[in-house]
């Protein structure tokens, strides 16, 4: 009866009352995770409190030095239109983060609902939804993005829509697989045998058990979304000028790279910092919460 692999291994972390504390303790032990958390905190805080930090209006075209180097007045110099690069960089994080959270958030919710329905509902509905997911996934991503942008015009909402639609099927499939594995488990049967309604089973007993892995998956997609958003902006298919945005700053810097190399860094370094931060944090989350990948021995 003693199975060898159950000896000496901890039961997987569950959502206990002291779980937040335990999580923080685990995170403190994970150096890369801590670094990620700090970077994410910096990026998010500067985006939220941006208006309090900035020294100039990021879209005001200043009559004065263009493409100037860093100075006391302009910490990171000015761009080709004489706008303050520091202020634009600080405010430029708002768009990528907003895009990431809006697109992944909506895709998480839709994916969760559709995945639960596919996993718990009747077979024909499952097949229908799977067909739907696979149809979306079969479009090449970039073609799909270009089509949407051609249709709706380049804007932040187009980018959000593209990312939400293309990432949703992946989340839905993960939820569906988890739900199917759980639907035949003894405790779901036990709930049904007590007369629990479908909504109660899904909301109280299924959801908490499928949402954990999903959140980890989504958090690991944040850096990719930031990169895609920056890429689309760089190509001029994202947010339109004069809105400050890292991808747009990068594009500006790229055009004037010979005169003002720091402009490229002003757009590029925040992107690198943000993606690395979210990547490290996401991986730490996975290591802490996913018992299969967790190495605690």
């Amino acid at each position, binding site marked *: *009866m003693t199975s060898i692999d159950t000896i000496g291994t901890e039961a997987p972390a*569950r959502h206990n009352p002291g779980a937040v504390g335990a999580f923080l303790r685990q995170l403190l032990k994970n150096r890369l995770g801590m670094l990620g958390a700090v970077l994410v905190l910096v990026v998010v805080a500067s985006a939220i409190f941006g208006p309090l930090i900035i020294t100039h209006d990021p879209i005001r075209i200043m009559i004065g030095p263009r493409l100037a180097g860093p100075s006391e007045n302009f910490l990171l110099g000015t761009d080709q239109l004489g706008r303050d690069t520091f202020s634009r960089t600080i405010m430029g994080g708002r768009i990528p983060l907003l895009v990431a959270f809006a697109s992944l958030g909506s895709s998480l919710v839709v994916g969760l609902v559709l995945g639960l329905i596919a996993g718990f509902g009747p077979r024909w509905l499952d097949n229908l939804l799977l067909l739907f997911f696979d149809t979306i996934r079969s479009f090449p991503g970039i073609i799909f993005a270009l089509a949407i942008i051609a249709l709706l015009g380049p804007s932040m909402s187009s980018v959000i829509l593209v990312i939400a639609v293309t990432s949703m099927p992946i989340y839905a499939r993960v939820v569906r697989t988890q739900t199917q594995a759980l639907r035949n488990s*003894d*405790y779901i*049967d*036990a709930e049904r045998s*007590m*007369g629990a309604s479908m909504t109660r089973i899904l909301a109280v007993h299924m959801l*908490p*058990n499928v949402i954990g892995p999903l959140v980890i998956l989504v958090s690991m997609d944040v850096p990719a979304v930031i990169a895609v958003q920056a890429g689309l902006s760089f190509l001029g298919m994202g947010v339109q000028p004069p809105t400050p945005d890292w991808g747009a700053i990068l594009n500006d810097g790229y055009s004037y790279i010979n005169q003002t190399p720091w402009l490229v860094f002003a757009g590029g370094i925040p992107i690198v910092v943000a993606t690395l931060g979210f990547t490290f944090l996401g991986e730490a989350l996975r290591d802490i919460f996913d018992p299969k990948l967790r190495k605690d021995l």
Partner: protein
Amino acid sequence: MSAVLSVEDLRVRFRTMGSLKALTTGTADPFIDAVCGVSFEIRKGETLALVGESGSGKSTIARTIIGLQPAFGGSVSFDGQELIGLKAAERKSYLRRMTMMFQDPVGSLSPRMTVQSLLTEPFRIHGVSNRDPGAEAERLLRMVGLPADFGRRYPHQLSGGQARRVGVARALALNPDLIIADEPTAGLDVSVQGEVLNLLARLQDELGIAILIITHNLNVVRHMADRMAIMYLGRVVEIGSTESIFDHPRHPYTEALLSANPVPDPDAVLNRIEIKGEVPSMLRRPTGCEFHTRCQYAQDICRRVFPAPSANPDDAGHSFRCHFPLQQKSQQAADSAAAISR
């Protein structure tokens, strides 16, 4: 005493392939009969054991009674009310009075809930809100002999025996008339097994609950059950009082099953009836008596004719389906005595 639960001619079928595949492969009947005309009843305060090997359909019967599996035919009536064909909402009120315990003691508890919320889950499901959850959980924990601070634990912090007690407590939450226990001792050590069975027996004596035990463990049956039904390939082949069946099995399969129960005594003299081969697939049910492929007494008629149920002459409650039932031991003794005197 009146029957709490009466099952009559219950049939459950499983689809083996999609209708399209059945059409293309020319399969006229893409179903198997997992449960095939099963009848029994349980009276108030009585324990009935459904005994059989894996695949005999015993768990399917339990799932059908509780409503997790639709029936194909027959009747399941609880306290006189027919349950087959009821809508989920109509059935719900009966699920207060009839509860089921599932095989895996830890796995049948929702993993992210505390013991207290697990125990009070039945109250929430059935909208019983006029009770204090903390007090109720404490009452139930005391009933099954667990300390009150267990209410704060999570299922993965419980041992198998403790989790089983929590399962028993939850099954008792709404004072049911019938508990269906699917392998209540599966995965438990012998020392803990006794605790769980004693607990069930005590609570049954105190509360007058009827229990349907589904198990393959004959030791459990002998100590717990008043009556037992032996299942083979989705049919009841023999049913009667536990004593009568243990002392005088009439069906050869029962005899083999009873003798396939190793006794912890190295010097036990065994007249073991070892049956050859394995349980046939439900996809290809044997003709006639379905046990004939493994039966050492099988004759030609067994291959052709499905035996009708017959009862013991002196005990109408003990019936079996066999063309050549084993003789009762008293009869055997009488026969051999007659042979000697001759």
